[in-house]
């Protein structure tokens, strides 16, 4: 506990390139390989037990983190005064370490993802499947992008300690190439995909607003009110009309029928409570699901 309370004494806080750090890294690496090997050789029942144990331990950590008293205004390098603070400090210090582990695992899994991508597209090219040329394009793009990115990183990291390459005037062919591929091509294509959503919204809305049932009629009516309320000119004409009507009839209740008031009522009285009710249900569902996974009760699902 006390060791973890001081950041400079933790495993990852050791002096870079020190022999102790290298010994610890090598030992951890070998141990990790051993655990992975043992895991692959373990029978399925034992594997499930291991998975359950890891899941339970991870869940327990975050539950403790949530329930345990949080010491406020903790200064760096301070030691805990008692056992409660000791656990709180330990939990606090362990969060970035666990995040590191998760990040490393994600990096490995990304490698598996890229393997999947390469396998699928290599097979498509080999079999000359339909539109296999797109697969060639994808492979070439992947290699080119990684190549430019990697060379750029090496140049910036090792050959440019003053950071001159950050300025466009000092760019070389690699930086221009990367800029062309990423900002010039990829980002533009992404923006184009995003822009297409506008047309998709239009076609989906057209289908949804066709009056075929009571539900679609309600949907169309509420959408119409909200859209009309956002049209400045129409809102002005409507509001002026209502104001004149109020002046003639001396009935301020009619103010409620201004288009902006009706739209506000639809949003605050109908839409917001409905969304909140749905979110309550979603939250409860997530709690129940998390609980089942944590306690290994999700039989027949992912954890079985």
């Amino acid at each position, binding site marked *: 506990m006390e060791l973890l309370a001081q950041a400079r004494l933790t495993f990852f806080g050791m002096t870079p390139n020190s022999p102790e750090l290298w010994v610890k890294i090598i030992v951890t690496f070998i141990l990790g390989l051993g655990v992975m090997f043992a895991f692959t050789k373990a029978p399925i029942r034992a594997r499930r037990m291991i998975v359950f144990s890891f899941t339970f331990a991870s869940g327990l950590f975050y539950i403790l983190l949530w329930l345990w*008293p949080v010491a406020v205004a903790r200064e760096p390098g301070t030691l805990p005064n008692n056992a409660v603070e000791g656990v709180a400090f330990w939990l606090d210090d362990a969060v970035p370490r666990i995040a590191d582990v998760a990040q490393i695992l994600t990096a490995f899994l990304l490698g598996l*993802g890229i393997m999947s991508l390469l396998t699928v597209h290599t097979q498509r090219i080999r079999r000359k499947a339909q539109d296999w040329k797109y697969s060639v394009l994808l492979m070439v793009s992947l290699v080119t992008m990684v190549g430019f990115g990697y060379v750029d990183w090496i140049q910036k990291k090792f050959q440019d300690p003053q950071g001159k390459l950050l300025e466009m005037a000092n760019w070389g062919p690699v930086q221009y190439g990367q800029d062309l591929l990423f900002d010039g091509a990829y980002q533009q294509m992404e923006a184009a995909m995003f822009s297409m959503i506008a047309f998709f*919204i239009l076609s989906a809305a057209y289908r949804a607003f066709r009056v075929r049932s009571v539900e679609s009629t309600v949907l169309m009516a509420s959408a119409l009110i909200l859209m009309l309320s956002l049209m400045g000119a129409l809102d002005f004409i409507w509001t002026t009309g209502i104001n004149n009507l109020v002046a003639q009839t*001396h009935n301020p209740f009619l103010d409620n029928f201004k288009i902006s008031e009706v739209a506000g009522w639809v949003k605050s009285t109908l839409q917001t409570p409905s969304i909140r009710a749905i979110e309550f*249900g979603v939250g409860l569902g997530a709690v129940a699901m*998390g609980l089942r996974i944590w306690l290994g009760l999700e039989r027949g*699902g992912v954890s079985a």
Partner: protein
Amino acid sequence: MQYLDTGWFGIFITLMMVTFVLSNIYRAKGKKELFIRRISGLNALDDAIGRATEMGRPIVMVPGIGDLNAISVQAVNIFKQVAKTASQFGTPIRVCCANAAVYTVAQEVIRDVYQGAGMIERFDSQTVQFVSDRQFAFAAGVSGMILRDQAAASFLLGEFYAESLIFAETANAIGAIQIAGSTKTAQTPFFIAACDYVLIGDEYYAASAYLTREPVLVGSLIGQDWGKILIAAMVFFGFLLNSIERVQPATQHRGEDDKGNANWTPVDSATVKEKDKLKKANDTFTFQVFNPFITEAMKKVDPPRKPDPDAPKEEGK
């Protein structure tokens, strides 16, 4: 050292929810038949698989673009049930992943299904595939796949953002039957507009209980329903309590001039004095229960200061 006071209320309510779920799981263990209301989106799963089988076209399944969490695990659970049926009929499936961790889990789960059904030869590299972890590259990749393979059905279940409509409209354009569900309330309207069936809110989490009818899962659903009743009761009593605590006399009276314009005048001074006794929003019991760490000192945004007697006096004052 001081500790952050997060209050007892949140922890108490969460523990109550947990107790509801666990106790109902325990209660349900011995029971065979437990009622779940009909969810048309989940009933349509078999129809969609049947349609794909008849047409000999693949089923495209997307577990969203979120990380590996309860939402994506639930999506994989549903896909597992779909894969069970599809593997029996030899219907090709395509599970497209945007997250490497979700891809790894989905691959293991779906491979297990094929292995369990003795159809492992039907599981190939395209059955579960990683497309891209960039949002719109993923959208383009999956849309291209839906169009090229002329998917007969598409199941969009998980955490979706702006790309939801790209998938839904692309699949709609080729006449694929679509079942969608997202816990993101911002995306649900898009799915409702574009898809045939939509799982709304907690229906999404009810899916595995609905499809498997396992007592443990159905018991958990009943626990969730108890939780909903508790929340509804809390909302009702909360607004009642807050309304009673903050009953306040009017300080202005609305009148009208000759032209019908509103004319606000203060009411008599005896009533106005009552405003000093009014409770502010952050003095109410409800506020204090939910915000125990907000102290009296913190409520004073700009506390009055005593004048400094040594400060030089400004001219004209």
